[in-house]
């Protein structure tokens, strides 16, 4: 056991790599959310230091263009983390009942992809971890649902499976 000096990027990379490894082999989704979420806190700051903007700024800009109320970066970041249940994985309030209703698969993938955008802004798409993960995503994730081809302004209803859209309409 020895004390060593680590860059902030190294600490984030180790956590992101662990999150990706667990996700790809189908393991603990809660751990994936925690690890990707923690890595992203560091990566967001490093991306901001590099470009004076990060993925949260991009999402915030899009939300404001769509008519959302203007918020600070910190407030917007917290709102995104709440959508992904990142805080619920590591905290429990005195008043709460302790139950969480969530889709772990979706949140885990969302947490990794959010961190990945900031990671790419720092190391680029040719970095071995990035390139390998993006290849895996292209082979294993639903390209239409997750808009892997990057169609601009894709609406959520257009990303749904047509069969499930049809059954929703019938149900309504």
């Amino acid at each position, binding site marked *: 056991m020895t004390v060593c000096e680590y860059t902030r990027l190294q600490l984030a990379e180790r956590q992101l790599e662990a999150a990706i490894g667990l996700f790809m082999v189908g393991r603990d989704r809660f751990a994936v959310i925690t690890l990707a979420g923690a890595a992203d806190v560091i990566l967001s700051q490093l991306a901001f230091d590099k470009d004076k903007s990060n993925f949260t700024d991009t999402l915030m800009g899009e939300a404001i263009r769509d008519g959302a109320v203007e918020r600070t970066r910190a407030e917007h970041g917290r709102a995104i983390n709440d959508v992904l249940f990142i805080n619920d994985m590591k905290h429990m309030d005195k008043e709460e009942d*302790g139950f969480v209703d969530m889709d772990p698969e979706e949140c885990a993938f969302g947490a990794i992809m959010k961190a990945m955008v900031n990671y790419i802004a720092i190391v680029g798409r040719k970095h071995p971890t990035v390139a390998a993960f993006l290849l895996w995503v292209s082979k294993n994730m639903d390209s239409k649902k997750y808009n892997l081809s990057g169609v601009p302004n894709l609406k959520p209803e257009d990303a749904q499976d047509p069969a499930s859209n049809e059954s929703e309409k019938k149900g309504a």
Partner: protein
Amino acid sequence: MPRFHKFDIARSQLVTATEIFFNQRNFSAVITLAGAASGILDELVRREGKEPFVDYTCRVHRELAGTTPPRRSAFHHIEKRLGISAHKHLSDKDTPTVKLDLERQATNALVRAISDYIVLKGQEEAFVKAVLQWTWQNSDGKAIMERYQAVPERQRPKK
């Protein structure tokens, strides 16, 4: 939408932290996962009317220094000492690098989380035994127990 209880979320992350500790030796991942599990287990132990690790450290501080630190401060101090803070926070005021003993801090973060887990569920599960037996062997358990025997009763964890 599936429903989960936070105990199961904490346990799952603690089991994963233990597996990564032994198999991959990615100590950064262990520190973060053990820290996340502790954030939930701490509250669950309180709800059982028992003494979480954080409260125990506050009690020992009072015995040794004569003052009880605020619980929140003690919690953050422990997170800093275990390297948990460095793995989940970064501000523009922080230094570009940080000095850490990742293996030692991962071991301690895991033991701290396991200690709260044991208060709730005992120590019979395989992953709990693995951590306890590994630390007994690698942290000179006998020497620690000899020192523990010399500690006054009021400085020991509550039974």
